[in-house]
């Protein structure tokens, strides 16, 4: 089999540095550490990137994908809006604030970015089925991308997910299996399925394709920097589920600096969790460098991973960059969804309520510099988590169609 992963030339263990050939493997044989793509980049220029398509493939020379990736059937995600959030900034007392709004992706969450990498890896390895364990958004991104790529799909979710996420995962076809348990139970199930003949020739986006899949989150870093005018933000607030996205955004910023595409300016990375599932925040505040798993209980289901695999790296990055990790309650999440919506016209899912809620909390507690250029991520669409604001899911008044009736409500 001849593999074409573009600039990616191998896999390396993030923990101990052991090197492996490109393949559908995800854990180091020496230490169980996570494997990630290792690259030999050619010359990459701003001009070459700027002349690329208005999606993540403008960064194909920085990703584990073949050079002709844009010609293949895929979802072409990315290049979502970086919204200048002047109203929200004024409300919170932050001088310069942007929202990176990833609800604008094809299946309305950032997951389309990572799944696009997994599709190319599945094609490379000759897999026939695309699969995942999912807190919801990933399941829909996988079934949609599989449909377009002509792959089979079989995805696994906790059975109690939001209705909209279940519908989104079903409508594209393929098999959707609800597991009685939490995401961590689903993840464990899939980890065992992968070693079984039942899962032969299956690509699990976040397991055996993870070294490729996870790289897709780097495109958030690339886009934010390019959209700021080839500059790194001074502060960024990123949600934490498994911690993979935060870890890869940091990797993306570092690559841009190493390749000379942006100036080497300091940035602080802040992680955001829901109080009902805050193992990383708890470890950060306690000064630990390992994460004790928890059983999640929060409305922010897309972040409800009680045993976050990249938690230790999140702690390292938050401390190295001078950022932090903070959490907010479900009530603060709902308030933040409404604040963002009323200030900027952006309807975030609960994960966006978490990041905006944490932004507010960091500002109020003085952990954030209100004078510094700040970016906050919204990674999904509020239409998928309507239950969170169900109290507001009704008209402010119901009247007869008469002016008098309306006047009486004013």
């Amino acid at each position, binding site marked *: 089999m001849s593999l074409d992963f573009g600039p990616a030339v191998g896999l390396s263990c993030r923990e101990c540095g052991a090197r492996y050939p490109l393949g559908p493997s995800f854990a180091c*044989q020496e230490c169980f550490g996570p494997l990630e793509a290792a690259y030999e980049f050619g010359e990459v220029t701003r001009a070459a990137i700027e002349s690329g398509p208005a999606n993540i493939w403008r960064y194909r020379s920085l990703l584990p994908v073949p050079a002709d990736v844009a010609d293949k059937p895929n979802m072409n995600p990315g290049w979502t809006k970086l919204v200048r959030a002047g109203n929200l900034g004024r409300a919170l007392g932050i001088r310069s604030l942007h929202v990176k709004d990833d609800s604008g992706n094809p299946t309305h969450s950032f997951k389309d970015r990572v799944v696009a990498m997994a599709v190319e890896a599945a094609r490379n390895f000759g897999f026939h089925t695309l699969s995942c364990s999912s807190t919801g958004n*990933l399941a829909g991104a996988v079934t949609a991308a599989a449909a377009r790529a002509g792959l089979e799909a079989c995805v696994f979710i906790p059975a109690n997910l939001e209705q909209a996420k279940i519908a989104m995962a079903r409508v594209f076809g393929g098999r959707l299996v609800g597991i009685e348990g939490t995401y961590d139970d689903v993840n464990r199930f*899939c980890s065992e399925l992968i*070693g079984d003949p039942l899962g032969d020739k299956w690509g699990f986006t976040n397991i055996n394709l*993870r070294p490729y899949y996870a790289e897709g989150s780097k495109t958030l870093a690339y886009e934010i920097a390019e959209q700021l005018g080839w500059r790194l933000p001074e502060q960024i607030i990123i949600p934490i589920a498994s911690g993979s996205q935060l870890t890869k955004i940091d990797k993306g910023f570092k690559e841009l600096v190493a390749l000379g595409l942006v100036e080497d300016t300091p940035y602080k990375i802040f992680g955001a969790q829901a109080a009902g599932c805050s193992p990383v925040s708890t470890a950060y505040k306690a000064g630990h460098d390992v994460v004790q*798993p928890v059983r999640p209980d929060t409305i922010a289901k897309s972040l409800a991973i009680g045993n976050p695999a990249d938690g230790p790296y999140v702690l390292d990055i938050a401390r190295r960059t001078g950022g932090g990790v903070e959490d907010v309650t479900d009530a603060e999440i709902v308030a933040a969804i409404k604040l963002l919506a009323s200030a900027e016209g952006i309807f975030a899912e609960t994960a966006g309520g978490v990041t905006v809620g944490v932004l507010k909390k960091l500002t109020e507690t003085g952990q954030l510099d209100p004078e510094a250029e700040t970016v906050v991520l919204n990674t999904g669409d509020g239409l998928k988590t309507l239950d969170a604001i169900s109290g507001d899911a009704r008209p402010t008044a119901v009247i007869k169609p008469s002016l008098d009736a309306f006047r009486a409500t004013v």
Partner: protein
Amino acid sequence: MSVSVRIPTILRTYTGGSAEVSGEGATLRDVLAKLDSDYPGIGARILDESGKIRRFVNVYVGEEDVRFAQGLDTPAPDGTQISIIPAVAGG
């Protein structure tokens, strides 16, 4: 006390390809010690130099992640299934 131990793909080189082997011991610590004597070297893949479970390994006794129970001192009753699984991210 006999238990069964599920072996992840990357450790099956130690077990001659077996996905599940039988083990013995009153606690997880004892089971892992016996496993290492049956399949020399496998213990050092699961435990670090100080004898703690490596940070990217999840071990379950029955349905319970042992970090919710008593870690290596978690009892391993007769007939229990123990699973050793690499940590994976996702969402």
